């Protein structure tokens, strides 16, 4: 079929619009990459001369290193706790009826609509009222609350697409419920558990607003350390940190894409 003039116009409009949108999405990252190479502490576009000194500065700044360690610890503990609690809850949500099931589900899912600053404020007030110290575990608790709904959803979806026949077969052959769970259910749920846990860890690692309310100097996470840096200094060190951040995330996503195909994970096929 021959393309009409209108078709050509539409095709080209589509291309131009798409290029502009992709440009908008990528613009800040390209700009921040240029800024990170700016030699002087005061930004200028285009840069007068180039240097890598801000990358060196980013690696030497103590708060970033400590923040990174804190963030990794908090993300690991938070994701692990959320995974154990969330997987258990998704299981009973899918399989059983019990008193207050709806209420429990509602409360656990509420962080999806409660703003993070409200969650942070709530836990801060609660810990103050209960005279709890502001330790790392308070930050972990906040992160568990925020990421739990995503873990529950991820595992719940896996359970919905689950072939119950294997469990029934094992059960009818005399396996105890514990054995069915360990040898059939858990292995079959692995993809859902891994993607749920991974997603929880990434969300926790990036969480900023709620954390800002509950951290102190000793427990501050990397995003909080970065925020405090911008408030104190105007030099492009944070641009260097941002570039490292973007590269690590993009490479990770590319790896996940190669392994799992993101289209499938996100249900956009």
């Amino acid at each position, binding site marked *: 079929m021959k393309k009409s003039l209108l078709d050509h116009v539409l095709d080209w409009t589509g291309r131009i619009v798409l290029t502009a949108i992709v440009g908008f999405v990528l613009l800040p990252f390209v700009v921040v990459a240029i800024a990170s190479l700016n030699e002087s502490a005061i930004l200028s576009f285009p840069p007068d001369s180039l240097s890598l000194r801000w990358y060196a500065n980013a690696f030497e700044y103590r708060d970033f290193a400590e923040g990174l360690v804190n963030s990794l610890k908090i993300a690991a503990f938070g994701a692990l706790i959320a995974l154990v*609690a969330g997987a258990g809850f998704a299981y*009973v949500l899918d399989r059983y009826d019990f008193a207050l099931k709806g209420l429990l589900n509602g409360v656990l899912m509420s962080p999806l609509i409660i703003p993070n600053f409200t969650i942070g404020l709530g836990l801060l007030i609660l810990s103050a009222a209960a005279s709890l110290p502001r330790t790392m575990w308070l930050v972990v608790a906040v992160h568990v609350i925020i990421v739990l709904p995503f873990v529950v959803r991820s595992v719940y979806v896996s359970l919905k697409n689950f072939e119950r026949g294997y469990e029934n077969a094992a059960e009818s052959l005399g396996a105890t419920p514990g054995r069915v769970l360990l040898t059939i259910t858990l292995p079959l749920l692995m993809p859902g558990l891994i993607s749920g846990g991974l997603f929880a860890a990434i969300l926790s690692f990036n969480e900023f607003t709620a954390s800002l309310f509950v951290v102190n100097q000793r427990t501050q996470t990397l995003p909080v350390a970065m925020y405090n840096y911008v408030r104190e200094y105007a030099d492009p060190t944070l641009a260097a940190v941002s570039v490292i951040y973007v590269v690590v995330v993009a490479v990770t996503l590319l790896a996940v894409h190669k392994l799992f195909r993101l289209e499938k994970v996100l249900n956009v096929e």
Partner: protein
Amino acid sequence: MKKRPFLAWFVSPSALIAFGIAASFLAIAQYSLRAHVPGALEPGGFTLDNFTTLWKAVYGRAFLNTVLLCFWTALFTLLIGYPLAYAMVRHPSPRLRSALLLVSLTPLFLGEIVRTYSWIIVLGNRGFVNGMLMEIGLIDRPIDFMFTLGGVVIALVHFTLPIVVVMLAAALAHIDRNLERAATSLGAGRIRVFLTVTLPLSIPGIVAATSTAFAWTFSAFATPQMIGGGQVQTISTMVYQVGFASFNFPLAASLSLVGLAFTVAVLALFNLGIRRLEKIGAH
């Protein structure tokens, strides 16, 4: 009912977390009814003063700013996100589709700080846009993006775009292509097929994406805080300021409570809309 192995074991951890959520929510509610004692972190006796204080113009302004930001951000995010989602699902080249997916998704995993900081570099007075425009002589003094509502909207659109694109793409991916083929075979042109078949069928997805965009914008803190720089106060920045600059946690609690009531009301409206649409779709 058959036997239910593991029920207690599997429910207890999440029940404990739910208890924590409920307790912190009650803590906020309780603080919102307590008097602020200047200089002390312990709140005073019970009072309704915090809620009457919220009628002051500063808080009204913060509320209005939040609503404006939510509206403009949702509008522009949809206008930009729809074509992107459409190309991501429909473009004939699988490589381009994958590339678009990666490009739209990467920002989702970058957190608010990296993205907001990057926009400060783009929009600042000595930033990329102003620097380049002055370099080529198009303007001789910088355009103000920082500390303006418009600047905050630009960064918030970028912040909200990935999740909206993913939701729209999921909605578009689940449209039955046969309906479009039927329209085409009956002689409808591309524009007509889009306007009368594809677009109406994706409306539930649009509504769902809009409600998520609203919730994200409402919840955003770093972007209005850093780009607004105190000139564009929102409910979130106000809660933080009242809490950590004047240590008036009772007022911060009542402000977040009112904000939460507002969010719940708006999201309930969206939900009602989605239900209605699903009913129409079912007929």
